[in-house]
Each structure stands twice: as C-alpha cells, then as structure tokens.
C-alpha cells in the first residue's frame, strides 16, 4: 500500500516539510483506510442486491418483507467481510464501470453466442464422423488482470474446438487443448479469433 519513495518514514508527523512534497505517499497513507471501507461498501452493495433480487415478491415494504431485509443485511455484511479483500485485489475495481457492463452484454449476445453455436455444430460434426487431430498448444494473448484472463479462459473453453488447460500466472501464457490442430505454434487470432480484443475492451 505504501510505496517506497524519497521519504523514509511512514508516519506523517515525523516527516516535517517533506510531507508536503511527497504527495503520492501521503495520499496512499491517508487514503488506505478510506479505500478499504469503500471496497467493503461496494462488496456489501453487490451481495445485498443479489439477495434482494432472489427474494423479491416476499412482502409489503416495496416488494420485500421486513424479515428478509434485516436478515439479508446481516448475511450480506458477513459475506462482504469475508470476501472483500479477494474481490478487488488485482484491478477488480475496473469492473465497476457501467460502460463495461454494456460492452459485456453486447459481447455476450453478439460474437460469443455466434461462436458457441458454431462450436456446437463443430462438435456435432466430430461426434458423427469421429475425425479428430488433437494437441496442446501455447499462445500469449497479452492480458494482465485476473478478470480478463478468467473471461478469456472461459470464452475459449466454450468456443470451437478449444479447451483451456492451464494459465501461467506470471507470463500470461495460455495452454489450450485444441481438437483440430492446424498450426503447432499459433497466434492468438488462429485459436480464438477476435476474443482478445473484446476481452481487452470489457475487462482491462
């Protein structure tokens, strides 16, 4: 949280005049608790909204009964306390942008559904004829965040002829089981088409 910089001490009152100059470090020291509370509140809101959607049409305050509101708040605060550190660790806060949600929906009903339909027809062809040429290939789409890698890995698993086997955490290499190997050293475009560009728009 605190970056090593020209200022040696972490305590702001030991710093004297330098505290005014090292604005970055000062900001990170003072803003860390605020940021943590904001993360907790965002997680709580997310969990509580899911609970409210699940228990709609149960009573008279709006759509919900009083017991559901109180119980849902208690359960949501417990779940948020348990999980808010995991959720926002590596660039997860980028997913809070509503524009990304719109792009995600467009991605889901556009190229993704098309590729899934093609994938199923492909599997149908291979089930009937039994013609396969499998292998495990490696490529690097150049994604950095966890959310982007997860999204691309799941997309690859559900699209024509490919199944994600392993993802290297440091370099971001994808190891993919390909049911019909056309090239031994493929580019990302050969394996998964336009998906990396969409994933960069949606999640990075």
């Amino acid at each position, binding site marked *: 949280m605190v970056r090593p910089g020209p200022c040696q001490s972490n305590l702001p009152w030991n710093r004297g005049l330098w505290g005014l100059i090292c604005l970055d470090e000062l900001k990170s020291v003072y803003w860390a608790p605020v940021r943590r509370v904001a993360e907790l509140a965002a997680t709580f809101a997310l969990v509580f909204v899911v609970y409210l*959607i*699940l228990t*709609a*049409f149960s009573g008279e305050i709006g759509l919900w009964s009083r017991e559901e509101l109180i119980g849902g708040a208690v359960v949501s605060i417990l779940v948020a306390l348990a999980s808010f550190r995991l959720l926002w660790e590596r660039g997860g806060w980028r997913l809070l942008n509503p524009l990304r949600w719109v792009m995600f929906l467009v991605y889901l009903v556009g190229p993704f559904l098309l590729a*899934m*339909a093609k*994938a*199923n027809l492909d*599997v*149908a062809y*291979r*089930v009937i004829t*039994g013609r*396969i*040429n*499998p*292998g*495990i*290939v*490696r490529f690097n789409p150049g994604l950095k965040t966890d959310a982007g890698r*997860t999204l691309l*890995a*799941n997309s690859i*698993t*559900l699209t024509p*002829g490919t*199944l*994600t*086997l*392993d993802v290297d955490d440091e370099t971001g290499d994808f*190891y993919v*089981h390909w*049911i019909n*190997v056309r090239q*031994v050293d493929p580019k990302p475009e050969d394996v998964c088409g336009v998906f990396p560009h969409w994933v960069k728009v949606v999640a990075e």
Partner: protein
Amino acid sequence: MNILMYVFLAVGAVFNGLGAVALHRFPDVYTRLHGATKCTTFGSIFSILAVVVYGAARGGSVGTSMVIRAVLALVFLLLTNPTGSHALARAAHRAGIKPFRAVVDRLEEVGK
C-alpha cells in the same frame, strides 16, 4: 410465444443429447470434456431460456420470480461450468493422463 418455447426446448434437448453421446464417442478425457462441456452448457442455456419465455408469458408475481430464478441459474451455469471443466482438465494432465494421439504437447515440454 408458445412456438418460441417449443423451439427452445427442442434445441436444448438436441444439444444435451449430443453432449451425452459425445461422452461415448470420443476416445480420451480431454475430447470428452470438449463434447460434454460445450454441448451441455449450450443445451442447458436453451432449456433455461424456454423457462424464461414461459415465465414471461405467464406474467404476475409467480412468473416474474420464475424468470428471476431461471436467469440466476443461467448465470451460475455460465460461470461455473467452464471453470469446473478447466479444473478437471488441468487435474487430469497433472495426474499424468496423456492426450490421445496428440500432435503436440507444449504443457508436457514445460515440465510441470
């Protein structure tokens, strides 16, 4: 509305059956995972979409909560199904099961 529901049910039944048959037609774990994951996810999506159409046509509080639950089940399936199959494939490879007649095996060359 009813026609749409029948079409969705038929598509779902056909692709789920394809996934079940793929379990018996393919020779090894990885290719079976291909067939099972893709086809059953696609088929289940269409089966659940049929329920969404049915609930929307029915309307009222029962129909709306039916739609909500069906959409949540759809989201859970889309999130968990590829992740689970990826975990199974990686575990099978680490347990030392070789891919059937593989042309190339880059993961083996890395030596994990």
